């Protein structure tokens, strides 16, 4: 597939796209059209978009070409379809919201729009962001551009696939337990989940509110830095949004890792981690060491507890967050309803898919009288333990490192029958959400033709350290520049 060929294609880094636009070597309109065309061409194979918005992108592009400024002026992107977009349907990958149009833009979308970025569509995802394979979408699974028989990861699978395939230079995802980092790893792109509270959750349809956080996917760390700089920062309409200052991320991505201490976490390389994946990650860490970083061994003894804790807390919150989908005011309404109880119960039975139902049931159970203390309260205590583990580890180092995922992308259907195996593979990413810390997944090579991701975790609000290390690694290696076979130029 071709994105339009030559220098007018969208598959380049943001700095060179901005330079071309400034020099009038290309136009925003041409970029928007090329990007929309490329995504449309990929759609039959990847199924990465739920809704394409080419007209919207083109008209926004015309404003940029007419002189409208902005930090991301003229740059096409896709947003995961669990962000509200005013007047554009927002499905969350669910039959429940298949026909739902919000009345307002999510803060993240509004900030990108204000910065001149061009939304070309809404990306496919696991239903309500619940899943690690993008197989749980009412609109069908997304496929991995590196191997169409494999999953792209999830839940931000559509976002990752479109960046990897070169249709857009960046994409917006959301990360509750790894939903930006894991698909970034599976698709060979860079994905950052900032500190909890760093970017506004307003308009991001809630899965698990205490864990959800907007994130960015792009080829390289420097591009993630440019986009995060636009979407991060306090939002008075999100009570959990942080007032901590936003760093100069773009500068950080260029500053290098001289003297930076990177803790190699023993538990991140624990049982279940594929040997080749571990090797690629160690090689990437060696590259960072060559760039001036110091590697130190550290432990996170409570890490294995993060899966049970996460799968109590996230479903508990989800069971409550998804209670509003009752067929009464909007969304899917069952036609088989004689009473209000039937209306609510049938609408939900028909509107939600099996994984969403599984989590709602689990969440309802752990919050029930008599079980709350044994599950929910206990899980909160474990969450504290995990956060304490991270705090102790950061006494000895500035970043923590390990594989983002224990394996490379698996095949479609491979884990559908065993949800627990699917859950267990998220151990390295969910712990970070439980602690509310920022983390990045960086391309670290390949195994069997599929990308491997290295995860780095930083102290709260130290996204700059992640960009510094990401930038340094990506000057040492070119894994992030590799294109899947058949991708655009």
């Amino acid at each position: 597939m071709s994105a339009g060929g030559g220098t007018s294609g969208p598959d380049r880094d943001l700095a060179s796209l901005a330079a071309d636009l400034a020099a009038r070597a290309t136009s925003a309109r041409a970029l928007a059209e090329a990007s929309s065309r490329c995504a449309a061409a990929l759609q039959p194979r990847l199924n990465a978009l739920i809704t394409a918005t080419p007209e919207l992108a083109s008209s926004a592009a015309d404003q940029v070409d007419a002189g409208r400024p902005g930090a991301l002026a003229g740059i096409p992107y896709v947003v995961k379809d669990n962000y509200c977009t005013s007047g554009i349907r927002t499905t969350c990958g669910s039959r429940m919201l298949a026909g739902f149009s919000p009345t307002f833009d999510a803060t993240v979308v509004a900030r990108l729009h204000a910065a001149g970025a061009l939304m070309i569509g809404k990306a496919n995802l696991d239903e309500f962001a619940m899943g690690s394979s993008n197989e749980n979408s009412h609109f069908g699974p997304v496929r991995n551009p590196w191997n169409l028989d494999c999953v792209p990861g999830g839940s931000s699978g559509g976002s990752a696939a479109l960046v990897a395939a070169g249709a857009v230079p960046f994409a917006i995802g959301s990360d509750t337990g790894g939903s930006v980092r894991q698909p970034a790893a599976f698709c060979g792109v860079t994905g950052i989940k900032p500190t909890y509270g760093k970017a506004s959750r307003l308009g991001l349809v809630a899965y698990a509110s205490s864990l959800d956080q907007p994130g960015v996917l792009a080829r390289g760390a420097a591009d993630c830095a440019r986009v995060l700089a636009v979407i991060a920062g306090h939002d008075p309409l999100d009570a959990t949004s942080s007032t901590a200052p936003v760093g100069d991320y773009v500068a950080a991505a260029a500053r290098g890792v001289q003297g930076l201490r990177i803790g190699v976490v023993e538990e991140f390389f624990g049982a279940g981690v594929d040997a080749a994946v571990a090797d690629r990650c160690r090689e990437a860490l060696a590259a960072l060491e060559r760039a001036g970083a110091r590697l130190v061994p550290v432990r996170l003894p409570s890490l294995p507890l993060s899966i049970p804790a996460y799968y109590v807390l996230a479903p508990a919150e989800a069971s409550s967050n998804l209670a509003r989908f009752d067929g009464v005011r909007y969304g899917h309404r069952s036609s088989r309803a004689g009473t209000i109880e039937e209306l609510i119960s049938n609408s939900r039975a028909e509107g939600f898919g099996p994984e969403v139902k599984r989590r709602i049931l689990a969440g309802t159970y752990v919050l029930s009288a008599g079980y709350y203390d044994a599950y929910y309260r206990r899980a909160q205590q474990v969450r504290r333990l995990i956060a304490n583990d991270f705090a102790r580890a950061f006494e000895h180092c500035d970043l923590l490192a390990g594989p983002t995922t224990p394996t490379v992308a698996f095949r479609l259907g491979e884990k559908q029958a065993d949800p627990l195996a699917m859950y267990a593979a998220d151990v390295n990413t969910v712990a970070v959400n439980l602690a509310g810390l920022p983390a990045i997944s960086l391309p670290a090579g390949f195994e069997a033709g599929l990308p491997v991701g290295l995860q780095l975790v930083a102290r709260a609000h130290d996204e700059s350290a992640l960009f510094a290390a990401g930038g340094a690694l990506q000057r040492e290696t070119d894994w992030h520049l590799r294109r899947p076979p058949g991708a655009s130029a």
Partner: protein
Amino acid sequence: MSRAWQPVIGLEIHVQLATRSKLFSGSATAYGAEPNAQACALDLGYPGTLPVPNREAVRFAIRLGLALNATIAPRSLFARKNYFYPDLPKGYQISQYEDPIVSAGTVRVRRTDGSTFEVEVQRAHLEEDAGKSVHDAFHGATALDLNRAGVPLLEIVSAPVLHSAEDATAYLRTVHRLVRWLGISDGNMQEGSFRCDANVSVRPGPDAPLGTRAEIKNVNSFRFVEKAIAYEIERQVRALENGESIVQETRLYDETQNRTRSMRGKESAHDYRYFPDPDLPPIALPTDLIAEERAGLVELPDARRERYVSELALSDYDADTLTLDRATSDYFETLLQSLATATRADATARPGLAKQAANWVNGELAAALNEAQATIEHSRVPAAALAGLLVRIHDGTVSGKLAKDVFGAMWRGEGDADAVIAARGLGQISDDAPILAAIDAMLAANPKQAEQFRAGDEKVFGWLIGQAMKATRGKANPQRLNALLRERLAQAR
């Protein structure tokens, strides 16, 4: 009743806070708007919306806590109460469960006979109201009005320490007066701004364990609360004496038949799955915010009542009436201050003045307001103007009797006291010459009666005074008239 059954009553009072916007959204809270005109995406439970706490509501809760001498939590939590109901748009109500903002307070209640008792308030917590299902707007369908969804409520929960319907109602009235006094609620029961659920049980004696309780929901007047509780006590005693047992349930009061009936059973089976709301960080109350509210706290009704009795020597009745509501009391306070300024004396130094002021507020003014169906905040004679009139009585310019006419003219908008007195020539005549002239003319016209008096008939003196007063058209200074008439009659003897 064969045994001495003891009723045990606890009240849950839902007070709608008088904030301009809702507890977690910017929507207005005005009563009576078009259905759903005051419901934004958040109030409708739309996906992607997030709650932002209303600071004013938090301040109001602090204010109540201070007035109840309660513990105000430096850190309190919002929790979700989960249940499905069509008028509950999010499928959960944001409330407080563990760590409410106010706990362990007390209310002193005065019965009508003057005796008092104390009620322990276990907690007061912030929560959002639900919407309203409308069953009669469309044929065969239920409509939803979500204007009320998200309106801030403070739920005030008493301990089960009330033992009669009368005491429960007296407590309810005291809390009602308090929240209005504090300015945190309009307390309008018809509009649902002040609602009450009563938990009622009975037990064979004060030392017996608590009996099974029934909850009476949403009764919307003091009278009906009292009747509903009284009925429920009677029902439970009757049932227990017949060997039946009481079911824990919610009951509705039917005011037309004066009875309660079961609303839904198995209430105890409800599991609300409370957990801390992850969208809302804990409410952290800095000590200076509490200190600021404490400094701004108005004098409370009990303290004011106490002061009226001890410092102004007002009767219990006057003190009670003047502290029934904040507006009346504030009117009286302004009146006292204006009088003090005008007479250059503290009203406490002149108990007669305070008593006179109280009489006017509780008498003429109350009657005029009542007739005009006006509230005291909108009195056509403001406190400072009434003070102007009382000063003229005090300095003898106008008699107490004529002052009522002056007040009437002031009420009709004819100007302040001095203007009315001047315009109508109502000023008291205190000079001797005109009074003497009137006396002489009167005596000349009534020689027979004058003679009777001189012959020792003291009773006729009153009649003579009346005639002389009439001759001055009521304006003669009564003391002066009295003295001069006696003088004249004595001279002529």
